[in-house]
């Protein structure tokens, strides 16, 4: 059974954008089992902008699952933003998970906003000033939650959804100097701690689409400026990660035989 996942991030909605995505979104019931939103749903995190998101992405005929992004935090109205989205039937994940039944296959989605810190060999450490330690601890805590949310799901297919990037691969095109503000290897480590099938993120507008974690999990940057369409659609084919020793091993095994 193929699972069809539609995804986009960084749509930055306000009144001026409402209606732009809707014609493409109306096709979703025929083309996807679920729509995932990879954060930065609003322009700067107001309740009224969240209502625009609810208008645009509510009542689509497919489940909609979202994480928030840094823009959605800017105005300190996160509880109101989440309430408005949930009232529209959008599931918001913050270090949590949801399992959907896709015609008999249990699709587990674990999501968290994530945070910065950088990547192996070029990352921030929990050392020095309180502000620096707080920065790294924030990422550590969120990554820990994401790992638990991924591992604890009882499902057939696992997908990780974040706003910040779990690998540097999908940042190619961004200035290397700002990588530490675009993601963290700790998110990748959390994703690799479970048999994850696919990891989706946004945030890096000038980045690139494809990458993999050190553990071999496919990563896709679905930021709207990167995919340049209303959403991307991914078809996940069995056997799923966890049912085998993983995609990389499965390919090697068939190559040997």
């Amino acid at each position, binding site marked *: 059974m193929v699972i069809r996942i539609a995804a986009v991030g960084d749509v*930055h909605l306000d009144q001026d954008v409402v209606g732009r995505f809707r*014609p493409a979104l109306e096709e979703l019931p025929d083309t996807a089992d679920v729509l995932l939103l990879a954060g930065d749903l609003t322009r*700067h995190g107001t309740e009224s902008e969240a209502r625009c998101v609810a208008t645009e992405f509510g009542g689509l005929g497919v489940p909609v699952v979202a994480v928030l992004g840094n*823009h959605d935090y*800017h105005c300190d109205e996160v509880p109101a933003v989440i309430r408005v989205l949930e009232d529209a039937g959008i599931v918001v994940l913050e270090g949590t998970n949801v399992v959907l039944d896709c015609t008999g296959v249990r699709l587990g989605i674990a999501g968290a906003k994530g945070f910065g810190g950088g990547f192996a060999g070029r990352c921030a450490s929990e050392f020095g000033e309180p502000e620096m330690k707080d920065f790294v601890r924030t990422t550590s805590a969120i990554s820990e939650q994401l790992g638990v949310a991924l591992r604890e799901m009882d499902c057939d297919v696992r997908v990780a959804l974040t706003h910040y990037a779990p690998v540097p691969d999908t940042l190619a095109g961004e200035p290397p100097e700002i990588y530490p503000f675009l993601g963290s290897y700790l998110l990748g480590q959390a994703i690799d701690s479970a048999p994850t099938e696919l990891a989706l993120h946004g945030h890096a507008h000038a980045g690139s689409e494809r990458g993999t974690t050190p553990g071999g999990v496919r990563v896709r940057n679905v930021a709207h*400026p990167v995919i*340049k*369409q209303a959403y*991307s659609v991914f078809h996940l*084919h069995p056997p799923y990660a966890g049912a085998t020793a993983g995609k990389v091993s499965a390919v090697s095994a068939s190559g040997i035989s």
Partner: protein
Amino acid sequence: MAKRDAEAGAEPPDDYLEAAIQRLLTENTEIAEQGITVTRRDHSVVLCGEVESAQRREEILRLVLERFPQVPVTVDIGLIRTQAPTEVEELR
């Protein structure tokens, strides 16, 4: 030489101006755009990137001209397309 250029209004924009415009576009909540690059050319600043609506592009130009009226600005900002995908990615 630099002084004469400055008096003639032809002094190239400096690093601080680049940083100031970048921060203005992010921190002004009417804009809140982090994806616009600010590039210095010989005698002007080029704003490049993609936004979600034509109004946002106009607002960016209006705000930068209002705040830095002495700086020649070139805008090369596009709208991000929102068509439905014509292809899917098969992940096996």
